[in-house]
């Protein structure tokens, strides 16, 4: 399989209407083609990032008059999500964009769709069978942890006794485990380790609660990595409530709010690691191309690539201006 790292684009276009869409490639691919119906299913939009995923996908579909996006309710119940895909198969949509709540659990029904001749574009959480998706758009959870860890190493590298804390997201999700693993591995490299770890639930409230407890537990901290900028609002509130500022905070996902904090010299937030909320929008684009038998422009090979792994850069005060437009509002 061809592995692409980075946005599949080269000519950044000034976004006219939608700030969240970021750099977009304009090619003859955007000319209207065959009418396609795309089924879209994603977990419940219960936090900003996931909300941005769905709205970006919808916005992307709006841009094409040849695309009808059929959006199933967001759900965190794999059983319901499976039935949604079964519904799409039954209706005979032209393509399915699927951000599964649990990649493994939806593999089987995705296979079924593929066997029924409906191409499936897998977004973010990977299936367990290579045959279950025509193309896969992946964020890089492990890489995210590595980026955050590496950044913290750069800042603290000379101090092996530095106290590093981690505020994870929903602990029972595989993606959280991947992020934590990447973080741990990167810290290992420079002789640091995670001294305190709590898990929040991607919500502001849990972020605040867990951070308050964490700060109470650790009187002296040097760096904190917070997996998710949505819960980050609560994390920052807790830090403010506790009146602490001896450390710096690295965020995750890349919300506009967090980027504004980075711009603010006073804030404890120094950086955030992007986890693109435009993945599903990419999925919709790819799904359209697959269904219309087109390929990604600027690629010589025939057909849409099998895997697109998106780039997870670190946003700091130096480059925040550049990334602010693609930050999502949490």
């Amino acid at each position, binding site marked *: 399989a061809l592995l692409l790292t980075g946005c599949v684009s080269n000519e950044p276009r000034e976004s006219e209407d939608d700030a969240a869409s970021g750099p977009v490639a304009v090619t003859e691919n955007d000319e209207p083609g065959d009418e396609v119906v795309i089924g879209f299913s994603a977990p*419940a*939009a219960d936090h900003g990032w996931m909300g941005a995923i769905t709205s970006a996908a919808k916005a992307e579909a709006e841009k094409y008059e040849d695309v009808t996006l*059929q*959006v*199933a*309710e*967001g*759900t*965190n*119940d*794999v*059983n*319901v999500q*499976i*039935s*949604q895909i*079964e*519904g799409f*198969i*039954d*209706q005979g949509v032209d393509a399915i964009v699927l951000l599964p*709540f*649990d*990649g*493994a*659990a*939806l*593999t*089987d*029904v995705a296979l079924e769709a593929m066997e029924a001749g409906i191409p499936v574009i897998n977004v973010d959480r990977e299936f*367990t069978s290579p045959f279950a998706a025509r193309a896969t758009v992946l964020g890089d959870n492990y890489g995210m942890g590595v980026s955050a860890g590496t950044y913290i190493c750069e800042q603290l590298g000379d101090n092996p006794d530095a106290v590093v804390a981690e505020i994870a997201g929903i*602990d*029972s*999700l*595989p993606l*959280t*485990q991947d992020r934590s693993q990447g973080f741990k591995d990167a810290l290992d490299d420079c002789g640091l380790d995670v001294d305190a770890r709590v898990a929040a639930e991607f919500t502001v409230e849990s972020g605040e609660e867990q951070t308050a407890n964490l700060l109470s537990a650790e009187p002296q901290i040097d760096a904190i990595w917070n997996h998710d900028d949505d819960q980050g609002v609560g994390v920052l509130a807790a830090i403010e409530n506790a009146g602490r500022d001896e450390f710096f905070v690295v965020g995750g996902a890349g919300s506009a709010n967090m980027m504004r904090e980075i711009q603010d010299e006073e804030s404890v937030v120094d950086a955030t690691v992007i986890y693109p909320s435009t993945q599903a929008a990419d999925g919709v684009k790819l799904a359209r191309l697959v269904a219309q038998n087109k390929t990604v422009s600027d690629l010589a090979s025939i057909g849409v690539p099998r895997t697109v792994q998106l780039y997870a850069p670190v946003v700091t005060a130096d480059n925040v201006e550049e990334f602010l437009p693609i930050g999502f509002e949490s």
Partner: protein
Amino acid sequence: MSQRSALMGPALRMGGLVLALVLLVVVGVATAGERFWSTGNLITVLSLAAVTGVVSIGMTFVITSGGIDLSVGAVVGLASVWASTLSTQYAAEDFGWWVIPLTALAVGLVAGLINGLLVAYGKMPAFMATLAMLAAARGLAEIIAGRRTQIVTVEPFFDVFQSRPLGVPAIVWIFVVVAAAGWFLLNRTTFGRRTVAVGGNPEASRLAGIKIKRHTLYLYGLAGLTAGIGAVILLARTTAGSSTHGTLLELDVIAAVVVGGTLLAGGRGTITGTVLGVLIFSTLTNVFVLNNLDSSVQAIAKGAIIVGAVLLQQWFAARERVTAT
């Protein structure tokens, strides 16, 4: 006349539910036409209903006896995880596919029996005992799974549970069989009649010589067992075990049972009503999806439908009472 009312009663009581379901179907056909009323879609609705449905049958017994089980969702998760660990799968490869469902059923049963022990012999309020089990089972499932999704690779398992006898998925058949068995158990056996008695008047039941503690133990065991069956269905559907399986399932299940007409206070239970309740919610979700409705709007509609169904059912129940005199 009392003969007639004894027959009419349940029919009328079901009236509201049937009406609600018919209304939903009409809305489905009107808004999605062919897409709704196709064999494929109807099977989708039934497959979706299978997990909630099976677990609801066990819950009907518990609620009829005046109890409640908040842990079923977590137990589904735990059973799915335990039945899909590597060692279980190796055993299944060695001994046969039945090791997997057997493990799930055993885990469900044991968790249910622990609930039963706490409620019957520890005299804990069911709400609290099963809330504790909810937390503990979820935590244990996470530890066992190491928070990874465990993929099942035992092909013979899928050969059985993903088969489609007569064109209908095996999991739908499981739902049908469990519902029928539940109906028989509740209405035609001493176990079922005693369940109603314990819910309706525990003291009178005790004085009539029913061992209510032991019976309560069995009831929670039964609920755990159906949670185990639910886990098997989920394994078959998702091909994977996960500690997140069954999250918030308990609320859906309780809603279906109570909307179906089983009294939360105990003393009256109906499997037919439960099945109708499950189908109503499952059809609802389906109609929403077919119509591309926003999930927030769905949530509001779901709230409204619960209110509507319960009020409608009460109206029919009131009519029944008038007819009975």
